[in-house]
C-alpha cells in the first residue's frame, strides 16, 4: 500500500522551530524551517541530519518558521528550490538580518550564518502567488491558499497524483483589522497538517475584545494617562495600529500615538505594497487612502517618554524582556494613571509574564526593585485559529486524516479527542523525530482500449451504472510507467506471444437404458429446452452435441451398457456455461423426455 510519512523535526508537540518532513509518492518535502527562540545552542535549529529532499516551503516570515533557513541552505548545504509567497520573500531577509545582528554582533557568537549567506539563500527562493499551482517537477505540484495570520502567510497543498497533503502553517480563521480569514476549498487531502496553538481555547467575539481595548485606551487617555503597548515588530503591531488609527480618526482624538522606529518602519513599507494580501476594507479603500499611511501615528523618539500629557506608545519587544519597551515601562510603572496592555503571549521568566501573573514588585538587575503601580491589562489579540477555527478548517477541507503540530502536547490531546469525536477521522500528533504513517488508497488511472470497451458494452447491453461495479475480462499491460487495459488478443499481438488454449474436460456418468444415439438425441432435446438462448447443435455423425463451443460426447461404458459416460469439454472462456452444464447433466435426464 502506498504511504504518506510525516516526521516533524521541530514543532511536534511543541511550539517553535517548525520543521516538518513529508514524504509521499517518492518525494520528500520540508515544510518550514524555523528556529526556537528559547535556546541558544544547537537545539535552536531542527535536526537536519537525515535529509534528502526535493523542495521546501516556508509559509510565513516569523522566525519560528523561517529562522533556520540560511543555516540549512548554506551551512548544511541544501541546494534545491525554496518556495515562499511574495510578501514573505520580501520581509523574511529583513528579519533574518536583524536576528543575525543581535546574535552575532551583540552576543558575539561565531558559528552562525552571515549576511552574505542570507542573500545567497534568498536567491534560491521561488516566489509563489495565491491559488497558483506550481509544478515543482513532473509529478509534485504545490498550491498556496490564504492563511490570515500575518501578511503573506499561506497554507500549502502538496499533490502527487491523487495523493495530497495540506500544511496550514500558522493561520487565523477570524478576520482582523488588516487581514482576512484563512480559506481553503474542499480539496479533501489525505492529511491535513494543522497548527494547534489554541487547541483548548474558543475565543469569544473579537469585536468585544476590540471594544474593550479601545475603551481602556480611550479612558486612560482621557484621564491624562499614558498607555504602553509592547508589541513585536510585525503582525499584531500593524493590526493594533490600524485599530487605534481608525478610532482616533473617528473620534477626533488629539492625543499622540507613537511607534518605535527601526524594523517596524521598514516593514510598514511592505504592508503598504502588498495590499492584495490584506482584507476587504483596506483593499477597497487604498485608492483613496492607504490605511498603512498613518495620520495619527508618528515615529517615537526616546525623549518623548518624559513628555507630559497623555500618549499611546507601541514599543518593541512584546514581552517586556529587553529594549525600548522595558525602558519605557520602567519610567511609567510608578504612576497609577498609566496603563500597560499586553496584547499577546509572554514566555515564562519575562517581565511581561511576571506582571501578568499579578506580581507588583519587580527585582531588576543591580538589586533595585521596581514598584508596579500602573494598570496591567491582558488582551489576546493572537492571530492563531482557536479550537473552533481549527474545526472549521477541517470541515472546509474535509481531510481523511488530521495531524496536529505546533502546540503543547496536553492541549493537542484534548483537541485530538474532539476531532475524532466530531468528524470520526484519524488524528495524529507525532512528537519531534517520530514518524506518523498514513496508508492511502489512491485510485490508479488506467487507459482502456476503445475496442475492449465497445465489446464489453455490447455484451453488457445497457449503459454503465456508476453505482454498481462490473467485472470485465481484459489484460493489464504495465509498461514504462503506463497502465493499459486491452483485450487479450491485442495483448498477445503486442507482446508477440502465442495463445495457449486451456480446456476443461469432465466425465459424467448417466444411467440411461437407451442406445447411444438415442441418449444423445435425448440429451440434445433436454439441453435445447433448458438453454433457450444458446445455439445447440446435434451432430449425430461424431456422436456429439455442441452447445456454443462446448462439446458433449456420449459413449457407453464397457461393463454396463446402461451406464453412459458423457464427456464434456469446454474452453476457459466458457467456464461459466461449462460448469453449469456439468452440474445439469449430473442430475440426470428427466424421465418424461421422449
Amino acid at each position: 500500500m502506498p504511504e504518506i510519512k510525516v516526521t516533524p523535526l521541530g514543532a511536534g508537540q511543541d511550539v517553535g522551530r517548525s520543521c516538518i518532513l513529508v514524504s509521499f509518492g517518492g518525494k520528500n518535502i520540508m515544510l518550514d524551517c524555523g528556529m526556537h527562540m528559547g535556546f541558544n545552542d544547537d537545539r535552536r535549529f531542527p535536526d537536519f541530519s537525515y535529509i534528502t529532499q526535493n523542495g521546501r516551503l516556508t509559509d510565513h516570515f516569523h522566525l519560528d518558521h523561517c529562522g533556520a533557513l540560511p543555516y540549512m541552505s548554506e551551512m548544511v548545504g541544501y541546494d534545491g528550490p525554496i518556495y515562499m509567497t511574495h510578501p514573505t520573500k520580501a520581509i523574511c531577509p529583513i528579519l533574518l538580518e536583524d536576528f543575525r545582528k543581535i546574535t552575532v554582533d551583540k552576543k558575539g557568537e561565531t558559528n552562525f550564518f552571515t549576511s552574505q549567506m542570507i542573500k545567497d539563500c534568498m536567491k534560491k527562493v521561488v516566489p509563489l502567488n495565491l491559488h497558483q499551482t506550481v509544478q515543482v517537477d513532473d509529478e509534485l505540484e504545490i498550491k498556496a491558499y490564504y492563511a490570515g495570520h500575518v501578511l503573506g502567510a499561506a497554507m500549502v497543498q502538496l499533490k502527487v497524483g491523487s495523493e495530497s497533503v495540506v500544511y496550514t502553517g500558522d493561520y487565523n480563521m477570524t478576520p482582523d483589522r488588516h487581514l482576512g480569514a484563512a480559506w481553503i476549498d474542499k480539496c479533501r487531502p489525505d492529511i491535513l497538517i494543522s497548527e494547534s496553538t489554541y487547541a483548548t481555547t474558543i475565543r469569544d467575539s473579537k469585536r468585544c475584545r476590540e471594544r474593550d481595548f479601545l475603551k481602556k485606551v480611550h479612558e486612560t487617555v482621557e484621564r491624562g494617562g499614558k498607555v504602553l503597548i509592547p508589541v513585536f515588530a510585525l503582525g499584531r503591531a500593524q493590526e493594533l495600529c490600524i485599530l487605534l488609527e481608525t478610532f482616533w480618526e473617528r473620534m477626533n482624538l488629539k492625543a499622540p500615538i507613537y511607534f518605535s522606529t527601526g524594523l517596524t518602519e521598514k516593514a510598514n513599507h511592505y504592508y503598504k505594497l502588498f495590499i492584495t494580501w490584506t482584507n476587504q476594507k483596506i483593499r477597497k479603500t487604498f485608492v483613496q487612502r492607504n490605511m498603512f499611511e498613518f495620520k495619527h501615528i508618528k515615529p517615537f523618539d526616546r525623549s518623548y517618554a518624559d513628555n507630559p500629557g497623555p500618549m499611546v506608545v507601541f514599543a518593541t519587544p512584546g514581552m517586556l524582556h529587553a529594549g525600548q519597551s522595558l525602558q519605557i515601562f520602567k519610567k511609567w510603572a510608578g504612576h497609577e494613571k498609566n496603563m500597560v496592555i499586553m496584547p499577546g503571549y509572554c514566555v515564562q521568566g519575562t517581565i511581561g509574564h511576571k506582571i501578568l501573573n499579578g506580581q507588583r514588585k519587580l527585582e531588576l538587575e543591580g538589586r533595585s526593585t521596581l514598584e508596579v503601580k500602573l494598570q496591567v491589562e491582558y488582551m489576546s489579540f493572537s492571530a492563531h485559529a482557536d479550537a473552533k477555527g481549527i474545526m472549521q478548517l477541517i470541515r472546509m477541507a474535509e481531510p481523511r486524516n488530521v495531524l496536529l503540530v505546533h502546540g503543547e502536547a496536553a492541549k493537542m490531546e484534548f483537541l485530538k479527542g474532539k476531532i475524532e469525536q466530531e468528524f470520526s477521522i484519524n488524528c495524529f500528533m507525532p512528537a519531534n523525530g517520530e514518524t506518523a504513517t498514513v496508508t492511502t488508497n489512491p485510485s490508479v488511472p488506467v487507459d482502456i482500449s476503445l475496442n475492449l470497451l465497445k465489446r464489453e458494452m455490447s455484451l453488457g447491453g445497457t449503459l454503465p451504472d456508476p453505482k454498481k461495479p462490473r467485472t470485465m475480462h481484459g489484460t493489464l499491460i504495465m509498461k514504462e510507467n503506463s497502465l493499459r487495459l486491452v483485450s487479450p488478443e491485442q495483448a498477445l499481438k503486442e507482446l508477440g506471444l502465442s495463445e495457449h488454449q486451456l480446456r476443461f474436460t469432465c466425465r459424467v456418468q448417466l444411467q440411461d437404458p437407451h442406445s447411444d444415439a438415442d441418449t444423445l438425441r435425448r440429451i440434445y432435446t433436454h439441453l435445447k429446452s433448458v438453454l433457450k438462448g444458446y445455439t445447440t447443435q446435434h451432430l449425430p455423425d461424431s456422436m456429439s452435441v455442441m452447445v456454443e463451443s462446448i462439446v458433449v460426447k456420449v459413449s457407453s461404458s464397457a461393463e454396463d451398457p446402461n451406464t453412459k459416460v458423457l464427456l464434456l469439454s469446454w474452453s476457459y472462456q466458457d467456464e461459466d456455461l461449462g460448469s453449469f452444464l456439468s452440474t445439469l447433466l449430473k442430475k440426470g435426464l428427466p424421465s418424461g423426455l421422449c
Partner: protein
Amino acid sequence: MAAHLKKRVYEEFSKVVQIPPEEVPVKKLRLSKPSKSAALHIDLCKASCSTDALQYLLQFARKAVEAESVEGVIRILLEHYYKETDNSVRLKIVSLLGLLSKTKGFSPDCIVDDAINALTTEKSHQVLAQLMDTLLVIGSQLPDNLLVRQRLIDMACKARLSRSRDVQSVISDYFGDQEPRVRTAAIKAMLQLHERGMNINQIIYDQLYPESIVPIPSSNEEVRLVDDSFGKISHMISDGSWMVRVQAAKTLGSMLQVSHYFLEQTLDKKLMSDLRRKRTAHERAKELYASGEFSSGRKWADDAPKERLDTNAVNLIASGACGAFVHGLEDEMYEVRIAAVEALSLLAQSSPSFAEKCLDFLVDMFNDEIEEVRLQSIHVLREISKNIILREDQLDTVLAVLEDSSRDIREALHELLCYTNVSTKECVQLALLELLKNLNKYPTDRNSVWKCLKFLGSRHPTLVLPLVPELLSTHPYFDTPEPDMDDPAYIAVLVLVFNAATSCPTMSSLFSDHTFRHYAYLRDSLSHLLAGRGGGRVVELVDSAAGPGSVESAQVFLQDSLNRVNTIHSLEAPGSQDLLDFTIRLGELQTELAGAADFCATYLRCQLLLMKALQERLWNMAVPLCLKQNAMATAAARQILEETYKLEFVYSGLESRQVATVHHIRLQARALQLVLTARARKGQFLPELPHFQETFVGKLLELIPRLSSCKTVELIKILQSTLRQSSMLPLTLPQQLHRATATIIEPTGESDHPLKFTTGLVVALDIDATLEHVQDPQTRVLYPDGQAHVITPKPGDFRKPGPGRHRLITQVYLSHSAWTDPGHVEVRLLLAYSSSTPSKTGWADSTDSLPPPEAAIEGTIPFSKSVKVLIMPKPARR
C-alpha cells in the same frame, strides 16, 4: 319569487341526498322508464359477456336520449354498474353517465351521490379517473348549486391527498439520481407540492437532506424541525463562499419560530449546556463541575485543558453551528456582516429575551470599520429598542459613538436615543452630558440634539424630575443668575426639562420665573421642540397667548380661518391680509400643519394678487394713461403663474381637487396676461394670437362654444368681464400636505478661502443637503457672469435616513475661464417638474445661452436658499 325558487332548489337537493341509491325501488324505475331505457335494460341483461355489454353500450352512446328518459337510463346504468365486474364496462358506464348528465333539461344532481359512493368503493384506477371526470362534468353542469360543488371539491381534495403519498415517494426516488439536473427538478417539484399546501413526509425530509436526521443519532432525543434546520443553516454561516454566508444569514433572520435555546446558542461559540442532553444525573453533576470545557482566552493562563466530558453526551446542535452570529458579525466581508445585523434585528423583534442578549453584540458593531455596517447596526438597535432597556454600561458604550466624526452616524445615534428607554436617572444625566459634549464638539448637530433631548425628556419624566434643580442650577434660597438664552446647551437642557414637564405637572413648581419666560420664548421660536400638550401651569401660560395648543385644534382653527377667508369674497384686502399672516404664523407653530398652512397662504396670496390686479380702475381708463398700472398687473400675473407652479409641484399629497383649484387660478392668470397683452399692443396682437398661450385659448374655446364664433376683440371683452366677475374658489384642505424643503448643509457659505483651481480644469465641490418630500432635485450653479449650469445628481448620491426624507451627498463640478479675483458662485437646489420639457443637464446646452440671472430655468422651481461659494480659477501655467 326568487326566494321561493331558491327554497325549491334546496328542497330538491336535500331530497336527493337523502335517498341512497340502494334503496331506490325497482318499481319506481319501471314507472319512469320510457321505451328507450327499457330497450337498453333488456340489452344489458341479455349480454352474456363483457364485450357484448360494451358493444351495446357503445351503440347506445351513439343515439341521442331525450331529456325525460335520461333519469331512467341513468338508473339502469347505475344498476349495471354495481353488478358489473369488468373494468372496461364500468369505465364505459361511468363515461356514459358523464355524457348523459350533459343533456339539456336534465338536472344531474341525483347522480352525485351515486358517483361519490362509487368513488369510495371503486378499486380500478382507470375507472376512478373516469369517475372524477364525470363528477367534474356534473359539477360544471350545476353552476348555482353551491353545496353540491363544495361537496365535490372536498371529495376531490380527499381523493388527491390519499394518493399524494405515492406522488411524494415517486418524486423522492429521484433525489438520489446521478444527474444533478434531475435532482434539482425533483427537489423543485417537491417544493411546488409543498407550496400547494401538502405536508411533506418527515421521512422524505430526511432523504432530502441525508446528513440531517431529525431524531438525534445515537439517542432517542428529537428536536423540532425548525430548530433542526436552524442549526443546519447556522452551520452554513461558516461556509467557504461568502455568498452562501450572506444567504445563510438572511435565512436565519427569516426563521422566527425557532426556540430560544437555539437562538441564544447563536451568540455563544461554545456549546451551551441547554443544547446538550445528558443521560444520567451523574453526568449532569459533572457538567456543573466543569461547565466550560473550552476556555475563552480572555483571561491570562486559563487555557489549561479541563476535565473532559463524557463523550456519550449528546449534542442537539452540531458544535460547528454554535455562535453563528458571532461568526457572522465578525466576518471578513461586510455584506455578510450587514446581513447578520439585519437578521439579528428580525429575530430580536420577535423575541424580547434574544433582543436583550444580542444588545452587546450590536453595540460592538458600532466599532466596525465600515461605516455602512455601523450605521446599519445603529438603525437596527433603534428598531429593537422598544424591546429593551439600556443599562448604564451599555448606554455608556452607545454614547461613546456620539463623538464619531461622521454626521450620518451621529444623526442615526440621535434617532436611536429618541427611542431608547433607560433605567436610572444617572443614565439620563449621562446621556445629557454626552449630548452636550457632542453639541460642543459639533455645533452643526444642534437641531438633531435638541430633537433627541425632546424625546428623551418626554419618555422619562420621572427620571428627569430629581435632576431638575441641578440642571437648571436653581437654589432653594438664592436667586441664581439668569442663563443666556442664546446658549445652545442651555436650550438643550430646557428642551429636556420642558418636555418632561408636560407629563409631570409637579415639575413646574421647581421652575424659577425666568424659566417660564424662557418657556414662552422657546414656545414661540422653537415650537416644534415643545409640541407636547396639556398639563401644568407652563402650558396654560402660553396657550392663552399663542392660541391653540394641540394639533387637532390647530387643524380646526386653520379650517375656520379658511372658511372665514372664503366668506370675505374679494375686495376686502386688508382683512384677508391679516388672516393670511395669521395662517402662515400658525404653520410655523405647528410643524404638522406647516405644509397645509403654507399652501393655503400661498393660494390666498395668489387670490389677493389677482383681485388687486382686477380691482384697479385701470380697466376703465384709456390705454396710454395706465402704463404704470398695466406694468403692475403684468407683474402680478407673472407672479401668480410662478406661484401656481409652486403650489402644484412643491407640495406633495395634493388631491386632484386642489390641483384643479390651482389650475383654475393659473387659468385666470393666463387670461389676465392675454387681456393685458391685447390691450397694450392692439395692432400686433392678432397675428400673434395663435402662438400666444395656445393651450389656454384652446381650453377657453372648448369651454365656451360661443367664443369660437366671435371675433378676437369681442373675445377679449368677454374675457375681461368674466375675469372681473370671477370670484375666488373656496379651498378645502387635503389630509396630508407636505411642502418640499431643502437645506444645504455643506458648503456653509461662510468660508473666506476661495476654492482655487486651474482654468479649464474641473474642481469638485462637495454638496451635502437634506431634502424633505422631494422626488428629483437638481443643483444649479450660477456664476457671477450670469452663466448657469444645471446639474442632475446621480441616484446613488441620495441616502434615505427616514420616510419622506433624503440626504443628498454629491459633488458638483465647476469650471470657468480665468478670473483676476476670487468671486462667488451661487449654488442652490431646484425642483424640476414633469409637465415641462425635459430638464437640461450638463453644461453644454446651458452655457451658450445666457439666461438672465433671476429668471427661473424653464420647468424648475428653486426651493432652497442659495449658498455662495468663493472660487478662484487661476490661469494655467505654461
